[in-house]
């Protein structure tokens, strides 16, 4: 493959390429391009090729331009310590560089891993069907609303979402429903939880789906889930619960509170902070199986009568059903699901529950410590918290956050006098330092 220039990943030696051209019967590669003169491009992109070594150096220097801040941030994107096992195994080329499992006979490995991922979601949610990924929690919620549109019994076309909802989630939801009859309306919150009375007043024939989160985006643990489930059920409306893979281990089981669909973030395990990249979890009741978006792995047998795995119910999907598909999703987050599954299995049930309990304990402790500082009140909401909480600041919140950044810490500004602080196993060892930094800047 002695070649002077061109793609380093194309193996053709000059002589080899010549032999191939000869076999085809053309003089050069350009003769193979059937492009009308009028649309030919003969310019340059102006992109210089760099060696692997130079590029690694360049990009390392580039990313080093980010300030090295210790983050106490969450609000839908969380950081938990990812064990080396996850990196090691998920980086195996057979996983990382494989395609969707269109030929199950030679992709049993990934299929089984995805089946196991689905199964663990079933274990955690108590719902019998989980797909093997959505892009993130926002698109998972939006797909849930579209599922509600397809399965609704009544004429309802309103999706009720909480007043506190990340704008990104709301934005995606609006877009996914833009092509339907559905509309989105909000219901109020009461001290960080669902204002159940207000919600009860809002739910009626027009309601297609009620969405609630546990924990909420403000870190509070929701106390009305059972009531919401009952309310939804009584009104023939779907109850969609938003949560995440760690919270699921500790908080009320979705099936037990009557959730019809569970969505949320599964990338809390397996992925470190990745600038918002996620893994949407999606689980639902058996009766909605054929309306589920995304890929499903099922069990079958092979010609030797051995258990085998395969993508199944593909007639729901775009490549078969096209404009009548349950979703347009094709490429999904399979590899991230693999990582989450390995991380989950590495933790095991005790490890996972311990991790989740620490999310409560550490948030409670940190809020208490900040509350002791003059000029801060925490937590703002008189609720139990999971990972994060809102802090009231006497001084303007943005100024404090700016000063904290100078000290090397990043927190959220969520109101003129409100900060939000998130603590997990990934930053808990820096809690003392954060408190000290707060003392410094107050």
């Amino acid at each position, binding site marked *: 493959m002695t070649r002077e220039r061109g793609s380093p990943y194309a193996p053709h030696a000059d002589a080899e390429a010549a032999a191939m051209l000869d076999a085809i019967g053309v003089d050069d590669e350009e003769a193979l391009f059937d492009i009308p003169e009028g649309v030919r491009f003969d310019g340059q992109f102006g992109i210089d090729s760099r060696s692997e070594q130079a590029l690694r150096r360049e990009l390392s220097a580039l990313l080093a331009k980010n300030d090295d801040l210790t983050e106490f941030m969450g609000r839908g994107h969380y950081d938990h310590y990812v064990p080396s096992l996850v990196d090691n195994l998920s980086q195996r*080329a057979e996983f990382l560089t494989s395609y969707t499992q269109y030929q199950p006979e*030679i992709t049993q490995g990934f299929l089984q891993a995805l089946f196991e991922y689905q199964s663990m979601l079933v274990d955690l949610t108590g719902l019998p069907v989980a797909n093997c990924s959505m892009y993130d929690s926002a*698109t998972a919620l939006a797909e849930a609303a579209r599922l509600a549109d397809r399965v609704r019994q009544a004429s309802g076309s309103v999706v009720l979402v909480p007043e506190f909802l990340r704008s990104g989630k709301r934005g995606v939801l609006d877009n996914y429903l833009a*092509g339907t009859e559905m509309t989105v309306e909000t219901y109020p919150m009461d001290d960080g939880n669902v204002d159940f009375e207000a919600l009860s007043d809002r739910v009626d024939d027009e309601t297609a789906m009620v969405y609630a989160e546990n924990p909420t985006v403000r870190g509070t643990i929701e106390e009305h889930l059972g009531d919401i489930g009952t309310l939804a059920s009584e009104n023939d409306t779907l109850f969609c619960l938003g949560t995440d893979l760690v919270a699921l281990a500790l908080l009320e089981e979705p099936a037990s509170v009557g959730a019809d669909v569970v969505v949320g973030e599964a990338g809390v395990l397996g992925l470190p902070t990745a600038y918002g990249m996620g893994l949407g979890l999606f689980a639902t009741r058996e009766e909605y199986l054929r309306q589920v978006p995304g890929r499903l792995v099922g069990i*079958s047998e092979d010609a030797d009568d051995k258990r085998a795995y395969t993508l199944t119910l593909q007639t729901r999907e775009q490549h078969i059903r096209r404009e009548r598909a349950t979703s347009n999703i094709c*490429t999904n987050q399979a590899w*991230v699901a693999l990582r989450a599954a390995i991380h989950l299995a590495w933790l095991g049930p005790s490890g996972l529950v311990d991790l989740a309990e620490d999310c409560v304990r550490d948030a409670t402790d940190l809020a208490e410590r900040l509350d002791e500082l003059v000029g801060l009140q925490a937590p703002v909401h008189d609720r139990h918290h999971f990972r994060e909480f809102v802090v009231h600041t006497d001084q303007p919140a943005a100024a404090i956050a700016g000063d904290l950044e100078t000290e090397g810490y990043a927190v959220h500004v969520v109101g003129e006098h409100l900060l939000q602080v998130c603590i997990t196993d990934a930053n808990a060892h820096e809690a003392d330092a954060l408190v000290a930094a707060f003392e410094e800047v107050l």
Partner: protein
Amino acid sequence: DQARYVENGQYEPLLSEKETTEVDVGGDDSPLPDDLTRDSVELPDLSEPELARHYTRLSQMNWSIDSGPYPLGSCTMKYNPKFTEAVAADPNGSVHPDRSDESIQGNLELLYGLQEYLAEIGGMDAVTLQPPAGAAGEFAGILVAKAYHEANGEDRNEVIIPASAHGTNFASAAMAGYDVVELPSAEDGRVDVEALEAAVGDDTAALMLTNPNTVGLFERDIEHIAETVHDAGGLLYYDGANLNALLGRARPGDMGFDIMHYNVHKTFATPHGGGGPGAGPVGVVDELAEYLPSPRVRERSSGSGYELFDPEQSVGKVHGFQGNWLVLVKAYAYIARLGDEGLLDASAKAVLNANYLGSQVEFDIPYGPYHHEFAATSGEKDAADVAKRMLDYGVHPPTTKWPEMVPEAMLTEPTEIESKKSLDDLAAAFNNAAADDEETLADAPTRTTARRIDQVSAARNPRLSWRALGDDE
């Protein structure tokens, strides 16, 4: 490739069949009152060495681009350069999406650079990196078209799509609320221009097209097609799935496309991860830039540094945050590694490889001249059976039975990474399978981990979690 000592009819037991534990949740030591917790959790409970073996074994039961040829048509399965993983793993890039712009100048500069690279490569004026996959890119692109028409006070409710297009085109247009008008192919395998002329009109929001199309043919009439759609007030959408054929030789923007998405996990060699994650950036012409999803990255007006901004009439969000960052980093690294010459060469070799392989395969290839992929037909033989038999010859088969314009289609895209020797092996797999008798084909595969898998019973009796396994299994 070690001894496979299959026990109890399973190639590898499930995690749940190895060991699970049910642990109680709540109680006196719990930080929460019992009414806010679940009662118990039951999950697999294994040690790290057991997990290492489990997943190592699973990986060995999985084909990949590092295993051998993976010529799935329209999937562009390229080699994924290893160094891009090291770049993506840089902890400095691992930041929260709510960080202040000022504190993440590294990420923003990289994303800006990628926007610029992609705009240049596609001949587009503005790019969003937010869509987390190709289909999400299509959806975002169609939302842009919709917003544009609505802003112009136009009520257009149809999207025209050739019958041979990717299924996502139809689904994405429908998700955005459009009626889909399907366009038949002409006899030469390309867009039926007369049918298009008849189909376009005041209702036409957009025509979605991939070029070369899904049998590898360049739409020679693209200029006329563009004119036709534009004259009717519609927009032209380019499905980037086949962009690898044209790098540096033709740009969608120059062909008259107004909107396009890029499949970075195809054209720009980011690993497909067994189904994802990918990324589906969307490029548009100037006139549409203000509708792109929000936020995008731009240079600060001060001229130093970068910032996020919301396009004025943005369609909003198609992902909760800013998309699949780790994938975007790898795409940037790949493009920068190749540079102009590498990209130009990648498409040259991709087209060379497809044409060489085509010349060596004994199956008929009805349409041509093709570029990066070709659709052979297995004729009398069932394409799916031929594909299963190819597994026995140590390669991954092509995409089968699609597109439907070719009967018993075997849509084959070797990409530029295969050597002549590898293509010869691939051709031998085709030709050996072609020479095998029906019984052999029906019995195939025999040399794989699992034998032929019953798809029908899987769908008829869905068992989708280990809870669905009976006690007898």
